[in-house]
């Protein structure tokens, strides 16, 4: 069972993508619900909103503990929450993946875009960027699966997966299938 962190954002789109990719999904809003899942998706949305709720609802440490044992997949705001360092502005994060990200790095909504990228062993896929962050640094233990304009946009470190775009808004399901495989391999 894949949990989707449902504090705010496009968690329903992720749950649908997991089902399309052949998995099962449920919404996670509490530490108890987190205990029942094998992998977690942190969706797109506003990272500041999610951070405030994680903090106020005492979910920050349970989430970090979950990530120390089980796979987490973060997209866009989720990527920001998983990163070790966050800039523009500087903010707190879970630090589960050794990357530095800059928020809203392409600009505002008018700079959002749909494009095509090539994933290593995944092939061509659509990438929807919405007020997306850019990964400015990827640590030695981080594997880059796909890049766009020279910046990594899909990376993994151990059991965790990070996308700065929104695979949940595309219909190819490639990235969600890849995450399901990572969860199954645990």
């Amino acid at each position: 069972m894949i949990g989707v962190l449902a504090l705010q954002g496009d968690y329903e789109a992720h749950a649908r993508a997991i089902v399309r990719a052949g998995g099962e999904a449920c919404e996670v809003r509490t530490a108890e619900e987190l205990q029942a899942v094998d992998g977690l998706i942190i969706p797109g949305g506003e990272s500041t909103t999610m951070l405030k709720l994680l903090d106020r609802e005492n979910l920050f440490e349970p989430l970090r503990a979950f990530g120390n044992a089980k796979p987490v997949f973060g997209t866009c705001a989720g990527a920001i929450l998983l990163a070790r360092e966050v800039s523009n502005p500087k903010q707190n994060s879970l630090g589960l993946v050794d990357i530095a990200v800059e928020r809203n790095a392409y600009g505002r909504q008018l700079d959002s875009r749909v494009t095509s990228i090539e994933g290593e062993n995944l092939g061509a896929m659509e990438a929807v960027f919405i007020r997306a962050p850019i990964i400015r640094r990827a640590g030695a233990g981080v594997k880059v699966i796909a890049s766009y304009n020279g910046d990594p946009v899909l990376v993994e470190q151990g059991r965790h997966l990070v996308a700065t775009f929104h695979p949940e808004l595309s219909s190819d399901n490639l990235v969600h299938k890849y995450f399901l495989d990572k969860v199954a391999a645990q």
Partner: protein
Amino acid sequence: MILNDEFRLKIGLAEMLKGGVIMDVTNPEQAQIAERAGACAVMALERVPSDIRKEGGVARMSPIRMMRGIMDSVSIPVMAKARIGHFMEARVLEALKVDYIDESEVLTPADEDNHIDKRGFRVPFVCGAKNLGEALRRISEGAAMIRTKGEAGSGNIVEAVRHMRTIQREMKQLTVLPHDELYAEAKRHQAPIELVEYVAQNGKLPVPNFSAGGVATPADAALMMAMGAETVFVGSGIFKSNDPERFAKAIVKATTYWKDPAKVLEACDEVGVSEPMRGLDTSKLPEEELMANRGW
């Protein structure tokens, strides 16, 4: 329905705002309070609706200097209101690079017959609706997000409930009709047949459906989520309460946890003895003062 990449990006940002609270702000200080409280976006406008109602006069797009100040002071998306039909205010807001434009009945309409032709813009639009026909007409003009109108600045949830129930009921009704009755339904709703067919097949709008107009308490916000809103706009409800920060935080919590009454209780309790905005009995308002009746 044109589902090209540009329209998908417009809907895409609306997807990212789901399950959150969008707060009306009139200056950078309020925008920062909203962001700190956990707003997923802010809506910039000249005056909050209850002040527009009280002070009268023509309500217009927010001054550019104020809007720049708001855009520079927060990292969350900034939306801004333009008058109904005032495509030039909208062009200015697009050039300013706001993230979303609300073609809003809260401002004084600039055109009593025509809404903005929103398809010609790259910036996404949200529009208000009282019923399904109005929602579908706005979508056919290019709106990428619909919000129920409610009655802005009233602090009274009754109109938001009426509009959400109406839209949900009209959508459900379409799903059980045979296809040959949809043409007459399109005529009745005064909406394009393609969009009527979409709703009949999917039981929902082709764009996200949010709620606005009258939310004043955490329980109001949770109520609208339970009735099918995917996100809640709060206008005067925050900055016309006597403790905006506290109300803002509590409304964010109630919106996220609307499925769990114990959590909504916590949110209501967090408000303490602070008072929500004073509400208006909308049934006593003269017809010409109802903002929801602006637009068609």
